[in-house]
């Protein structure tokens, strides 16, 4: 069957089996391998993308269900060589170690800040409850999202904790 959707601002279409999962359509048909396949059982959030502005699990959705949707993946965040504030935050605040969870974590954070531009630390932690990270202990990820939130509000981010030490 033929499926069509907007991915990172570009209209795309391709052939998919009914059982083709959206994450495989993105990675294998469109070559967008930034979105990761993690647990495959809707627990880890590594496959998180933005679908019509909402964080969803691309491994737990048929490509057919995304027909006509407006999708953003991690590849669609940087504009004209400039990192998205959330990507910059993960860089500046060391929000990743191995990097496997990072694309999903970033897409979760981007949609969270779109919905709630000034989240509290608790709201950030709750907002990324669907994204598992086995390296960082989450602390620096929360700092990265706080950094990004400040940047997106036009504020100066608080100094990194290690600068106060």
């Amino acid at each position, binding site marked *: *069957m033929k499926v069509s959707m907007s991915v990172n601002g570009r209209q795309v279409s391709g052939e998919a*089996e*009914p*059982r*083709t*999962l959206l994450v*495989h359509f993105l990675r294998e048909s469109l070559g967008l391998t930034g979105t990761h396949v993690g647990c*495959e*059982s*809707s627990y880890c*959030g590594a496959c*998180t993308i933005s679908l019509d502005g*909402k*964080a*969803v*699990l691309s491994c*737990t*959705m*048929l490509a*057919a*269900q995304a027909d006509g949707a407006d999708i953003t993946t991690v590849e669609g965040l940087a504009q004209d060589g400039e990192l998205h504030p959330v990507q910059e935050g993960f860089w500046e605040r060391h929000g990743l170690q191995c990097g496997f969870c990072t694309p999903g974590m970033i897409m*979760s954070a981007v949609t*969270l800040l779109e919905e709630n531009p000034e989240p509290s630390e608790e709201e950030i932690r*709750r*907002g*990324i*409850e*669907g994204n598992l990270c086995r390296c960082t202990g989450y602390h620096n990820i929360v700092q990265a999202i706080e950094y990004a939130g400040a940047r997106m509000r036009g504020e100066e981010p608080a100094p990194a904790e290690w600068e106060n030490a």
Partner: protein
Amino acid sequence: MYPRPFEYVLPSGLDDALDALDANPGAKVLAGGMSLLPMMKMRLLSPEMVVDIGRIAGLDQITDNGDSISIGALVTHSEVAASGLVGEHGAALATAASWTGDRQVRNRGTCCGSMVHADVAADQPAAALALGATMVAASSSGTREIAAADFFVDTLMSALEPNEILTEIRIPKVGAGTGSAYDKLGRRGGHTDYAVAGVAVSVTRSNGSVSAATVAVTGVGNRPVLVGEVADALVGSDGSDAAVEAAAAQATCGIEVLEDLYGSVDYKTHLAQVFAARAVKAALASAA
């Protein structure tokens, strides 16, 4: 992990969807897919046909019927959690929806889907029981209404027939003096993940005493159930902490508590009592 191959049907109207179910007894209905697709990926389930109701107009609304509210088959957990109407008349359900799965799951998964999946540890079925919800099931021969109390039959089994679609959940509106609440311990701690034990409560206060109560328990047995003993002990009491705790001590009356990875029979029995007391107190506070 791919599901096994299946025929995919995308009906534009409810009648077409119901015809497809009639013609294919092995068909499964797909809405949000947060329970169905993981089961298909793990090949616990391999339907010959998937009927995707995701684009049927009119099923994605929460509507005010005057004396009740309806939650359509495509309304997501996020939408239930954020709904002012659900918050006003079914706070227990709004809370349960806000604690279902995680943010990504809540953006796709549906309230009706959670009901028909009938997981033993799901949050929202307990709220539907406590709120006295009615399930509206459509088939090609018409619609029938099923009381929530008759809907949850056994583990992963609802009263829905294979050729039926749960098109809406109807919740009676409540007036001043009635309040509801849900509380639980999640498997990942706090309120996160499925309930190790969860309790939903609706209470009505009048003239300083509790005049009506319903209490439903999830997570501890083979299905979410109403526990009449707790409700009976509450009704007629003054709603004091002592009365609530005495009533909550009966939280697992009539339930065969099952041990699982998350707790022993004793532990889950204890949790049900603790969360029954907490949920009753919260419901009483909101009914004041």
